């Protein structure tokens, strides 16, 4: 698009791109370098002469060891995986069914139900967390993984439904009709004909839902109280800070290790994730 001399390409492309990458990725570099830096080097004021921000010559595993030996980090990882997997599975089943019904079946109030589900998609968690905390307590779900497994679908289902509607609409009606003429019931036609065609959509919805539930914070912060029940984001926030003292080494190691599972899941399904992300806003 940009024509002309070479310097223009530098000014209009390479330099801005490099600055964007620096801005967007530097915090991750900082996480990595902090989590392997020994404490003696870590707590050296920025204006001291031997402050060496970008490199360390004595990398250490101490912070990671501290995390696994002195804290419940391993349990937090397990809790988060368990909660994210189950709530994603529930949301996918609900979202696929609801998406199918709303996009391919004729029934009264289909339009207004679709709109209602879209509106719940736009309800932020912070609007409802206080009454929800009370309800969770009344159902005796407080401080159990189920408090999150059952509430995470409220922000995952609407998005899964919305995304799946788009995929189901694209499946030609004739495909389903052929199966029905061959003797399949509606249920069978849905299960064996339409849903398999929409598998890329299910993958996109699934990977997006998994990252969202892995990252969720406020419900987990409010509904869970005992350290061994916590998820990674809440555990790192509440257990690695004592009063005003921040254990920066373990904190950054925890932040890094807590991010790696989503980063791996994401790296396998980048295209699906992007499809889910863009599908989630375009509808």
């Amino acid at each position: 698009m940009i024509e002309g001399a070479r310097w223009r390409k530098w000014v209009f492309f390479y330099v801005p791109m490099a600055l964007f990458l620096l801005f967007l990725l530097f915090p991750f570099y900082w996480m990595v370098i902090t989590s392997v830096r020994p404490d003696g080097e870590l707590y050296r004021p920025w204006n001291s002469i031997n402050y060496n921000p970008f490199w360390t010559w004595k990398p250490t595993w101490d912070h990671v060891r501290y995390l696994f030996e002195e804290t419940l980090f391993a349990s937090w990882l397990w809790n988060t995986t368990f909660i994210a997997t189950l709530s994603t599975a529930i949301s996918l089943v609900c979202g696929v069914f609801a998406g199918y019904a709303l996009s391919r079946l004729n029934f009264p109030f289909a339009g207004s139900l679709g709109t209602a589900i879209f509106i719940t998609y736009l309800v932020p968690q912070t609007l409802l967390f206080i009454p929800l905390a009370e309800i969770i307590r009344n159902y005796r779900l407080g401080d159990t993984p189920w408090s999150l497994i059952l509430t995470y679908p409220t922000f995952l289902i609407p998005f899964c439904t919305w995304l799946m509607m788009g995929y189901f609409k694209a499946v030609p009606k004739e495909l389903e009709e052929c199966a029905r003429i061959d003797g399949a019931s509606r249920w069978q036609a849905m299960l064996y004909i339409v849903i398999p065609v929409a598998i890329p959509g299910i993958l996109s919805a699934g990977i997006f839902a998994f990252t969202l539930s892995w990252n969720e914070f406020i419900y987990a912060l409010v509904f869970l109280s005992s350290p061994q029940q916590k998820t990674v984001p809440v555990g790192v926030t509440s257990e690695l800070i004592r009063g005003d003292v921040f254990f920066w080494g373990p904190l950054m190691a925890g932040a890094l290790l807590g991010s790696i599972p989503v980063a791996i899941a994401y790296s396998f399904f980048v295209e699906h994730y992007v499809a889910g992300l863009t599908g989630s806003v375009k509808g």
Partner: protein
Amino acid sequence: MAIAETRIYMPGAPRPRLRLLEDERWLAFVLLVPTLALLGMFIAYPFVRGILLSVTNARVGVPGEFVGLANFYKIFNDGIFRTSVYNTFVYTGVTTVFKLALGLWLAMLLNRNFRGKAFTRAFILLPFIIPTVLSTFAWKWMFDPTFSVLNWLLYHLGLITGRINWLGDPDLAMISIIIVNIWRGVPFFAISLLAGLQTISPELSEAAAIDGAKPLQRFWYITWPLLLPVTMVVVLFSVIQTFADFQIVYVMTGGGPANATHLFATYAYQIGIGTGILSEGAAISLAMFPVLFLVVIIQLLYIRRVEVR
């Protein structure tokens, strides 16, 4: 029903229970029940509970009595609440402008062909997919007054002479929070807008270029109008999320220094969960509702208009 009365059926024919599912309305009902049950139980019901809670004086463990709109009178006369409202609007407004501008710029850069494009695009999304609280801790550590790498950088670039206490000063703390939100949001804008850009045929721009349109004119008269529907949806979506944001402020400042950086959600948390006055906390949360409602209405109307076209 006539079908159900047929008692003799061929081997392999669907069982009567499944025959009910042959009716479109019944099938739709069965398919929607799990979704409606979960959304009803954990969105609609809490919403009603929240309204009921906000007109009582309930605390943790104390059911409370009906007090009318007393909680709302109280918060509207509360200086910290007013600051939170102001902060929330500033936070949402400023970050949205920057996220849109930078996101659009980055999307245009990514829309070109260059080596390592797929790789770059994958890396750029990292701030958006990594748990926000965890990455915000990295920022908090970068903003630490004594060990700040940012201070070191600014000092060596010759921009500052002394130390800057980023999170200790109300204005600087607000700026810091805004920077983190922009950092987190730019990838979302960039990738969504890139998807929009990719649907625009490059031939349009080329044709305009042949007709003598300058790059800026091509952007303003071709790309921008065609991108507008996607932009609108992304902006409205982001406005809702930012307006109701919690995590970044909770980690960076916890609403401090001296309650100067609270947003609706963090103040609601401090009152409702921190001090246990559930009713007032619920009222603060619900005070967000009119604005969110307005944005949702705009979004619904806009989507409908685009669909009609």
